[in-house]
C-alpha cells in the first residue's frame, strides 16, 4: 500500500508537468482548431538555448530557466508566424504539415547549436527532498507540483477575470461571432500562442531540471506526451488537460513500478486508445463529440 501511494505521488508530480504541456496544446487548439506539432520541439530548442549558456558560460540556474522560457517563446512566435498566421485559416492540414517541417528545422538548429547527443541541465536546488511519514517527496517533484499549481491559478485568473481572457474564450467558442464583437481573432491567436509557449517553457524547464539532462528527442517526447494528455482529458478543455496530464503521469509511474519499464509507454497508449474508442471526446470533453454525433443521427 505504501508503494502504491508513493508511486501515485511521484506520478502526480510528473503528471503536473504533463498537465502544463497539455494546457499549452489545449489553449492553442481551442482558439484556432489547428494542432502545432512544433510545440514540443520549440520547448526543446528553448531548453537547448538554456543549456548552451549553462555549458559555455556556466550560468546560474535561474538564468538558465529565464533563457529556456524566453527561447521557447521566441521560437513559438516564429512557428506561429510561419505555420499559422501565414496560412489560410481553413487549411488545417497544411498548418500541421508546415509545423512538422519547421520541427525538422528546429531539430537541425539544435544540433548545430550543440552537436552532441546529451547535455547536462542544471537542477534547481541541491537538496534531496522532504520526508513525511513513510513517504518521500523528491525536491524537484515538490517544485514541479508547486509551480504547476501556481501557473494553473494564474491561468484561471487570466482567463476568467481579464478582458483578454474573455476575448480568448469568445474566439475559441466562435471566431466569427467574436470578430463581430470587435475582437481581432488574429491578435488573440498570437497572444494565446505566446501564453502557450510561456507555459510550455516553464513545463519544459521543470521536467528537464528533474531529469538533469536534455537531448534533441525531448521535442518528440514533449509533443506526444502533451497530445496524449490533452486527448485523454478532452480537446480544448482546460480542466480536461489538467486531469489528463495527472492521469497520464499516474498510469506511467504505476505501470513502471508494477510491470517494468517496457510497459510504461505501451500502457499509456493503450489507455488512450480505449478512451478514444469507448468515449470519443475524452474524459471531460464529451460536448463537442456528442453534438456532432447528434447532427449525424438527424439526417
Amino acid at each position, binding site marked *: 500500500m505504501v508503494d502504491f501511494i508513493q508511486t501515485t505521488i511521484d506520478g502526480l508530480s510528473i503528471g503536473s508537468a504533463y498537465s502544463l504541456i497539455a494546457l499549452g496544446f489545449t489553449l492553442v487548439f481551442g482558439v484556432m482548431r489547428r494542432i502545432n506539432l512544433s510545440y514540443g520541439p520549440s520547448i526543446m530548442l528553448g531548453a537547448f538555448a538554456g543549456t548552451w549558456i549553462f555549458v559555455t558560460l556556466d550560468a546560474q540556474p535561474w538564468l538558465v530557466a529565464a533563457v529556456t522560457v524566453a527561447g521557447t517563446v521566441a521560437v513559438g512566435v516564429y512557428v506561429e508566424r510561419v505555420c499559422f498566421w501565414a496560412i489560410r485559416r481553413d487549411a488545417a492540414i497544411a498548418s500541421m*504539415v508546415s509545423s512538422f517541417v519547421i520541427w525538422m528545422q528546429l531539430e537541425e538548429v539544435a544540433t548545430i547549436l550543440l552537436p552532441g547527443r546529451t547535455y547536462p541541465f542544471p537542477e534547481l536546488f541541491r537538496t534531496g527532498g522532504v520526508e513525511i511519514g513513510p513517504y518521500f517527496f523528491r525536491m524537484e517533484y515538490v517544485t514541479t507540483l508547486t509551480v504547476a499549481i501556481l501557473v494553473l491559478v494564474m491561468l484561471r485568473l487570466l482567463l476568467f477575470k481579464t478582458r483578454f481572457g474573455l476575448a480568448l474564450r469568445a474566439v475559441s467558442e466562435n471566431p466569427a461571432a467574436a470578430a463581430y464583437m470587435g475582437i481581432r481573432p488574429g491578435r488573440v491567436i498570437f497572444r494565446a500562442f505566446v501564453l502557450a509557449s510561456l507555459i510550455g517553457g516553464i513545463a519544459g524547464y521543470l521536467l528537464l531540471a528533474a531529469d538533469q539532462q536534455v537531448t534533441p528527442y525531448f521535442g518528440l517526447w514533449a509533443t506526444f506526451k502533451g497530445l496524449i494528455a490533452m486527448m485523454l482529458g478532452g480537446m480544448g478543455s482546460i480542466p480536461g488537460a489538467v486531469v489528463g496530464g495527472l492521469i497520464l503521469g499516474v498510469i506511467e509511474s504505476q505501470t513502471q513500478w508494477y510491470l517494468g519499464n517496457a510497459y510504461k509507454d505501451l500502457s499509456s497508449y493503450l489507455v488512450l486508445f480505449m478512451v478514444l474508442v469507448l468515449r470519443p471526446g475524452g474524459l471531460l470533453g464529451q460536448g463537442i463529440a456528442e453534438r456532432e454525433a447528434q447532427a449525424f443521427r438527424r439526417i
Partner: protein
Amino acid sequence: MSEYAISVASNMGMIAFVALSAYVILVVGEISFGQQAYFGIGAYMSGAATAMWGWPFGLALAVGSLSAAAAAFAIGALTIRLRGLYFAISTLCFAEMLRLWLNSVHVRVEVDGEMVGPDGAEGFGDIRWIFENDVTPLEFMFIIYGLLGAVLAFLLLVERSRLGAALRMVGQDPLLARSQGIDASACKLLAVMFAGLIAGLGGGLYAHFATYIEPNVFNVMLGVHGLAYGLIGGLGTALGPIIGVVLDIGFLEGIRAIQGYRMIVFGGLVAILLIVMPRGILDETRVYRIKRWMRRT
C-alpha cells in the same frame, strides 16, 4: 546506374507506398499518423513468409499486404466514428502500441541450421530471399517500380469512377455526402483498408530490400513523413504523393553539399510552398485546369 543511385531510387519507391497510403486517407478527409504500422505489419509478415516458412516471394507479398489490410479493417472498424484529431491520435496510438509490442515478440525457428525470426528489439534479420534467388539491386528496383506503377494506375482509375467521386465527397463534407445517399462510414472504412493494403505492400518490399528490419524503423517519423509527402505533392491526384517523395528525397540528395544545414533550407522552402499552395502542388483546382487544358489540345 550506380549502386548509390539505385538504392536512393529504391528507397524513394518504397516510401512512395507510405505516402500513397497516407494520401488515400487524406482524400476521405482524415489524417493518419499511423500508416507506418501497416508498413511494419507488411514487412514482418512477408519477411516471415519467405525467411521462416520458405514461401515464394509473390505469395509472401500478398500475405503481408492482406494482413496489413485486415489489421487496418479491424482498427478502422473500431475508430471509424472518430473524426479529425481524435482519429489521427487513435491511429498514432495503434502504431505506437504495435511498435512497442514488437519489441517483445520473439518467434525464432530453425531454418537450414540457423535461427531466424523476429527477435524483439534485436530486430528480424536474415531475410535472404534476394540473395538466395540472385536478384540484383537493379532488378529489385524494377519490381518496386512495377508494383508502384500498378498501385498508382489502380488509384488513378478509381479516381475517375463514381467511387472516386464518392470518396472525395466524403472528404469534403461527410454530412452532405450522406444526404446524397452515400454511406460515409463505409467509404472511410474502405479507404482505410485500402491504405493499409498499400502500406503493407510497401513494407513487404522493404523487408526484402533491407534484409533486416527492427521495430524502431516503423516509428512515428516514417508515418509523418509519408503524410507530409502526400500533402506537399497535392491532394488533387494520386500523382501528388509521388511528386512529394521525389521533391523531398531527390532534393535532399541533391543538396548534400550543404550538409548540416539542408533541413533548415528544405524546411523553409516547404513552409513557403505550403503558404502559397495550402493543398499542395497538384491540388484539386490545378488538376481540374490541367485536365481541361489537355482536353482542349
